[in-house]
């Protein structure tokens, strides 16, 4: 047999588990900050949701007899990432049993039923969140203020609700998110607080600065594309800027950028390589669509936050986006151009 050798300057591309391990590294600081802000309730929520995702993946692996072969999909870290990201989008006092259901739905309905990794139409984490948002609308909009003094010694009462029972009332623990305050009570939160993250909200979405740093790490390592986040940010600034210029009662673009789950969604959800388009032009269209939809839902929708539905909506339109954004093949000349040259 002829032995083929590669040139020494060839670089091996990263394998899937390697890429995903870097994504986990980038998510861990956000998780730590979430635990610092919301205490042991956030820690328990992260652990329960992630475990639920991993166990569901294991269950479906066993059902499809993949566990014995090399195709065991637990080892590629993607279920772990789905679990961590899903936990980061939930409110701190979210009952743990609901978190477990969200994790199950995310992996079962969002991923394995489509055929496993690489076949899902929607971002699994957001699909899980959308399910619990529709199933338990009260629990998922019960917010707790950040940085309570007793957060490391006692759980938020609603966290430890018995499975399948109604969580206890959140009176005395509630603290509306900056977006809800803005929408329903016309109170603006200082942007510096929003940027640093000392506000209430879903456990992982509060600190814009930290999310930007973690996202920048992935972009610098070449693991994450920069086009989608940039397109989302541009679209958000432009859309909310137009409203802000004509009517100052609308929130400013900077408020829109730093509040809610926009940064977490733009950097970690929308960039999911499976459910985002693969063509460069498609990525721009995809990002712009998410940004515009988010602002429209935030300003004119019933809910204060719109990034989740905007991303799911854009996920659904990915096949159309890819159809219109096919790049030109190398050396390929369009029929019209050919005709012109012939003349």
């Amino acid at each position, binding site marked *: 047999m002829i032995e083929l050798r590669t040139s020494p300057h060839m670089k091996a591309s990263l394998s899937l588990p390697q890429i995903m391990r870097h994504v986990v590294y980038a998510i861990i600081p956000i998780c730590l900050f979430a635990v610092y802000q919301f205490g042991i309730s956030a820690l328990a929520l992260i652990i329960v949701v992630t475990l639920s995702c991993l166990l569901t993946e294991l269950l479906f692996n066993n059902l499809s007899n993949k566990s014995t072969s090399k195709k065991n999909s637990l080892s590629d870290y993607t279920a772990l990432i789905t679990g961590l990201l899903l936990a980061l989008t939930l409110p701190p006092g979210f009952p743990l049993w609901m978190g477990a259901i969200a994790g199950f739905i995310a992996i079962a*309905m969002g991923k394995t039923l489509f055929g496993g990794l690489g076949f899902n139409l929607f971002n699994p984490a957001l699909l899980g969140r959308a399910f619990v948002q529709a*199933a338990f609308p009260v629990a998922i909009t019960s917010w707790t203020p950040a940085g309570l003094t007793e957060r490391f010694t006692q759980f938020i009462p609603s966290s430890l609700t018995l499975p399948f*029972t109604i969580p206890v009332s959140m009176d005395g623990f509630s603290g509306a998110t900056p977006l809800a305050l803005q929408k329903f009570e016309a109170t603006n939160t200082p942007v510096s607080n929003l940027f640093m993250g000392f506000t209430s909200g879903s456990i992982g979405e509060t600190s814009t600065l930290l999310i930007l740093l973690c996202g920048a790490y992935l972009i610098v390592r070449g693991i994450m594309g920069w086009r989608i986040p940039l397109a989302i940010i541009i679209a958000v600034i432009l859309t909310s800027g137009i409203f802000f210029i004509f009517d100052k009662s609308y929130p400013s673009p900077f408020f829109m950028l730093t509040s809610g789950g926009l940064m977490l969604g733009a950097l970690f959800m929308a960039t999911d390589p499976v459910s985002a388009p693969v063509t460069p032009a498609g990525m721009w269209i995809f990002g712009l669509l998410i940004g515009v939809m988010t602002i429209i839902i935030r300003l004119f929708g019933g809910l204060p936050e719109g990034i989740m539905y905007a991303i799911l909506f854009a996920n659904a339109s990915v096949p159309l986006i890819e159809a219109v954004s096919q790049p030109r093949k190398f050396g390929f000349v369009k029929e019209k151009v050919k005709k012109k040259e012939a003349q």
Partner: protein
Amino acid sequence: MPLKDDHTITADTFLAGIWKENPVFVMLLGMCPVLAVTNSVINALAMGIATTFVLLCSSSLISLLRNLIPKEVRIATYIVIIATFVTITDYVIQAISLELYNALGAFIQLIVVNCMILGRAEAYASKNRLLKTITNSLGMGIGFSIALLCLGSVRELLGNGSLLGYSIFGDAFQPWVVMVLPPGGFIVLGAWLLLFNWIKERSAKTTSEALVTQKEFSNAR
């Protein structure tokens, strides 16, 4: 007629609609009421009975008239016959319970375009004798009702914590609001289809394995 009719009624004539050719779980017919009115057991039950009644009456009449209906206008004739019985059902439900009538809404009138009923008329009633048609339609109607009840009970149990309006899990139960909303219909239907196909695939596998072992056995002999 090119084919000679087979007039014998077997158990399969009746059971086909319940299991092997279940209109919802196998043929996926009449999805509109299946998804829309199964948010509670009582709605599902009422819809099942109404549809079974219309199916039974219309296919019997069509079976009786099958040699009189001109082929060119058969669909129109079927629709007129079905619409007659739907109108009767519509008024009867209004008379019995206005509350139920309002809960079912336009879906009672929409029975007229239920493709399961038209499908039975076209594929079965127009080719078979009265008694056989009645047997088959009854099976189909019961199969349809069972499917509606399957969806309705899961959706009411999870979405409201009750069955037929009676609380099952007590006051502390957290209802899953999504289950009584339209997405819940799709999710529960999908889950039932998954279960049915899984059972079918398993039974098909065991029968084929049994056949193989039988063959090996006879070969060895």
